[in-house]
């Protein structure tokens, strides 16, 4: 049950159950006591009345010459009571409605017994008190039947009230249970929130210290765990950063030296020239990889971005195309500036990585389009679509290709560090944007970059 119900639902149900049990027991007890008390009261009252009436009837019967029916007519019992008299085998009644048939058979047959008794029985469907008083002096039996339907109504009302009370208690208990459950679970919510923030990369998140002795240990171990985790991640990141920083100087020296060598190509043998070309190609690849690594390190370290407010995304794409030695004709110009707030160097590197990816893995970049989606004031987005004419990316790989060092097996032989797309994804993340991969109309891959449109534009640029 616990596994199917939530902790909150379980606690609520348990509280409700407890409440209804408690209210039920108390209600039943109250009802029992009240009922027996009321019945007892009623019995005594009836008995007193019956003895008074019996004594009157006896006196009447003992007065010679009076007929039983006259005597009964003179008795004036309360409205709900009927007096019955049996004399010499005949029954007389003070009421037309109630005759000797009202008396249970068993009672009527006890004619011979000279004892008085009081008893409850149902008369015509109404619980009534039956009282018998033998009148030996008059040679008669006196019976008085008193309907107790008002007692019945009282008990009914009491029952209703108690049931209503039990229901109210159950509801109150359920509400209390829900509240208690929420209180009990609240620290868990805080933990869940903190864990989500940590998973989102905010490693400085900690649970606030608490006075609650039940929670203090837990909060302590949670925070210790996050500390250890953060330290580990930081150490890894620092290691990567240190390694890439250390690699810069030798790489720079290598790049410069190869540059000097390349200038002397003419003096070299064909073989040497070939080797220099090989070195150059791999060195360029190394250079790109290191720059990607350094950029990723910067993004990981949360280095501040140099956001240019209200930068034209169309111009950014055009300049990035030109800067990377491509034709600006690849750009499908929307004919109007679409402004975004981005770090232009970082965003240019991200775009360039997408273009390089299209050229390297997608059979060539075919088209780049820039457009805007959504109306002003409704968080409009600027969309950049980068299309290639390759074989596309299978749906199951469309997320994984943004992982670091992910490489499609079939593309493994092609150059590319597998860092480029992850840099794109992390750059976009840092800009509150997103990038995804889909198929285009030519069965190639389309990488879609979505950025929030500049708020400087909406506010009306000065």
């Amino acid at each position, binding site marked *: 049950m616990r596994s199917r119900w939530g902790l909150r639902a379980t606690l609520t149900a348990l509280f409700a159950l407890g409440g209804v049990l408690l209210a039920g027991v108390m209600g039943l007890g109250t009802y029992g006591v009240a009922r027996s008390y009321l019945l007892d009261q009623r019995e005594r009252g009836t008995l007193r009345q019956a003895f008074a009436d019996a004594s009157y009837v006896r006196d009447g019967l003992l007065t010679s010459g009076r007929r039983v029916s006259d005597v009964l007519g003179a008795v004036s019992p309360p409205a709900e009571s009927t007096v019955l008299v049996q004399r010499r085998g005949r029954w007389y009644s003070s009421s037309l409605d109630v005759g000797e048939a009202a008396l249970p058979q068993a009672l009527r047959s006890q004619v011979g017994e000279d004892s008085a008794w009081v008893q409850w029985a149902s008369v015509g469907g109404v619980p009534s008190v039956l009282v018998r008083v033998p009148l030996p002096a008059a040679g008669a039996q006196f019976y008085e039947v008193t309907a107790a339907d008002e007692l019945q109504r009282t008990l009914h009302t009491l029952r209703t009230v108690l049931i209503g009370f039990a229901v109210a208690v159950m509801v109150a208990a359920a509400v209390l249970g829900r509240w208690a459950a929420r209180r009990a679970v609240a620290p868990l919510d805080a933990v869940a929130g903190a864990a989500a923030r940590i998973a989102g990369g905010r490693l400085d998140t900690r649970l606030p210290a608490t006075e609650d002795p039940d929670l203090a240990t837990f909060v302590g171990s949670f925070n210790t765990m996050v500390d250890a985790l953060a330290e580990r991640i930081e150490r890894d990141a620092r290691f990567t950063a240190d390694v890439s*920083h250390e690699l810069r*100087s030798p790489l720079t*020296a290598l*790049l*410069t030296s190869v*540059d000097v060598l390349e200038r002397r190509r003419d003096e070299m043998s064909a073989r040497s020239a070939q080797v220099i070309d090989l070195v150059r190609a791999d060195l360029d690849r190394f250079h790109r990889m290191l720059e990607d690594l350094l950029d990723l390190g*910067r993004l990981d370290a949360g280095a501040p971005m140099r956001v240019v407010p209200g930068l034209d995304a169309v111009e950014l794409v055009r300049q990035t195309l030109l800067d990377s030695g491509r034709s600006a004709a690849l750009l499908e110009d929307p004919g109007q500036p679409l402004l975004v707030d981005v770090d232009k160097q970082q965003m*240019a590197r991200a775009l360039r990585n997408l273009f390089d990816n299209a050229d390297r893995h997608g059979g060539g970049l075919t088209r780049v389009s820039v457009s805007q989606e959504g109306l002003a004031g409704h968080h409009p987005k600027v969309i950049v679509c980068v299309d290639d004419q390759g074989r596309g990316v299978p749906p199951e790989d469309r997320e994984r290709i943004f992982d670091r060092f992910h490489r499609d097996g079939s593309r493994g032989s092609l150059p590319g560090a597998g860092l480029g797309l992850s840099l794109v994804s992390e750059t976009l993340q840092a800009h509150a944007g997103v990038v995804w991969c889909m198929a285009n109309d030519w069965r190639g891959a389309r990488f879609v970059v979505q950025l929030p449109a500049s708020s400087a534009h909406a506010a009306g640029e000065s």
Partner: protein
Amino acid sequence: MLVVEDDDGIRTSLALALEDEGYDVDPHASGEDAFAAVSAHPPDLMLVDLMLGRMDGFTFIRSARTVSDAPVIVVSARDDTHDIVAALEAGADDYVTKPFVVKEVSARLRALMRRGRGGPINEQSGRRVVLDSGPPTLVLDMDAGRVTREATEVHLTVTEFRLLCELASPPDRVLSRQVLLDRVWDRGFFGDERIVDVHIRRLRTKVEREPGDPQIVVTVRGLGYRLHTGE
């Protein structure tokens, strides 16, 4: 030109590469040696690594600036934002970050050497611009390549002077940071606009009466900078 770089590999290869480009290179491994060389023979250009031994790049630039107005390009292994801004504020004119390629360095050098002091600025050259009608009067003389306050010359670096000339030809016209970056530093679309901001700040401390409340080099919010003349 002077090259200060403590990494042997980079220093040697850079010297070779720049010699190939036609520069007369004077390489040094430490800030102290280099400063002695600068004092003895002021170079036309300086290429300085920020991470040096005892005398770091910032200190070297500040000391070198006391004896030379020549353009300084900083090589930063740390492309840390603070380092670059600090170096620019210390007096550097531009920067490259490691790992760099020679093409990049020579492009930066060419840009800063493109138009030396006193050279033709553009068609508008040969003008004198009164920056502050004074007293004391502040005059930019493009032909003589100097700025004078009354009779004394205001000391500007080559790049600061060129920036002032761009703003002054003609004056009272708003130039965006992108345009200034392009004209003075020959940096394209992806140039770092902070270079302009830091140079404007440096320029203001030299020409303004109250650098905190500039009256000559005025910021036009959201657009760029404008030279307000005293004429």
